[in-house]
């Protein structure tokens, strides 16, 4: 389907609004999806949240021309939609065996100089650590994992100052590091 066909398929917006909206979808759909996924941790829910975000944008179609930074504006909407959808906080509890496996993956990751992919248990462990962080730290850390967003843009999305975002991100990373160190210490000596 060509761009022109897609534009005419929307059929509701006339002229510039149509182009703006389609461009927004083409440029930022992936970012919106990643923001949603960072909160919901589920492909299906993330896609639903992405769809909802753009449907909301459709409601504001008359105001599209007045928006200076559509990327941040979209990121803000996506964040709100995703947070609203995550009614209960995502929490993962790992068994003792899984924790041990995660520790082994951590040690092998530390020992290896290559950019190897971390194992599933390690990813789950990190997810569970992030999910129990205090809310302001968790929000900043989750958004910082979305590679399309800079610190300034994260500050805009969360309505905070740039310095506050930097400091929260530092604190969140510190907490995660301490937890990982503790994990290494706990399971490191076991065979």
């Amino acid at each position, binding site marked *: *389907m060509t761009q022109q066909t*897609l534009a005419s*398929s*929307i*059929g*509701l917006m006339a002229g510039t609004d149509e182009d703006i*909206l*389609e461009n927004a*979808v*083409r440029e930022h*759909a*992936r970012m919106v*999806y*990643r923001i949603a*996924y*960072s909160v919901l941790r589920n*492909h299906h829910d*993330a*896609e639903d949240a*992405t*769809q909802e975000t*753009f*449907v909301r944008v*459709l409601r504001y179609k008359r105001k599209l021309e007045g928006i200076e930074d559509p990327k941040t504006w979209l990121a803000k909407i996506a964040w709100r939609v995703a947070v609203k959808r995550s009614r209960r906080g995502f929490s993962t509890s790992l068994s003792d065996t899984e924790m041990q496996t995660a520790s082994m993956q*951590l040690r092998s*990751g*530390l020992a290896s100089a290559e*950019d190897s*992919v*971390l194992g599933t248990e*390690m*990813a789950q462990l*990190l*997810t569970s650590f*992030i999910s129990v962080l205090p809310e302001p730290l968790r929000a900043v*850390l*989750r958004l*910082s*994992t*979305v*590679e399309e967003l800079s610190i300034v843009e994260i500050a805009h999305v969360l309505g905070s100052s740039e310095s506050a975002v930097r400091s929260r991100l530092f604190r969140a*990373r510190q907490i*995660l*590091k301490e937890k*990982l*160190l503790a994990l290494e210490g706990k399971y490191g000596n076991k065979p």
Partner: protein
Amino acid sequence: METNHRDRFDELLDKALHQYGYVEPRIGLEKRILANMQVAGNRGLSGYRWLLAGTVTATLVVAMATGIWHRVLTPKQNVAAPAASQDAMKEVSSATIPRNPRLVQPRTSRRRRRAVEGSRVASADSPRLARFPAPLPLSQEELLLARYAEHFPKEALLVAQEQRDFEKEIQLAERDAGAASGFPDQER
């Protein structure tokens, strides 16, 4: 040694967080979004149509209800009744309404009579009426009868005939009774 370990941890954390945030949507996300937006837009448009249709219907219903209510409240005095119903009305009025106007006129006090006479004097300058004396306004009972005759002319005609026959029978019975008692003057 400790600093090196920490740096290594930082690197590992960076890698883990990158892996945490790196996710690719299913192929064709943009197309699905655009298609969904089209559906949502059409739904919104049809919603507006339903709203418009609902508003127009509600307005029509209110207008009709108002018209019917107005018609019910307004008496139909100037409406020309059909010929059959007019006949029926005559029959009804002749059969049921007493001919003696004295009986029809309600008793009024002297003050009231004077007031009415005064108003007659005051309205002497007004143009002459087409019919003299002006007909008295119909009472509530007469109005009801007139409406009945207007709506059901045949039934009203039958009722009027029945009433007339009944009156004749009573008159005949009175005559017979008078003749039997030997007082023929009672007929008068």
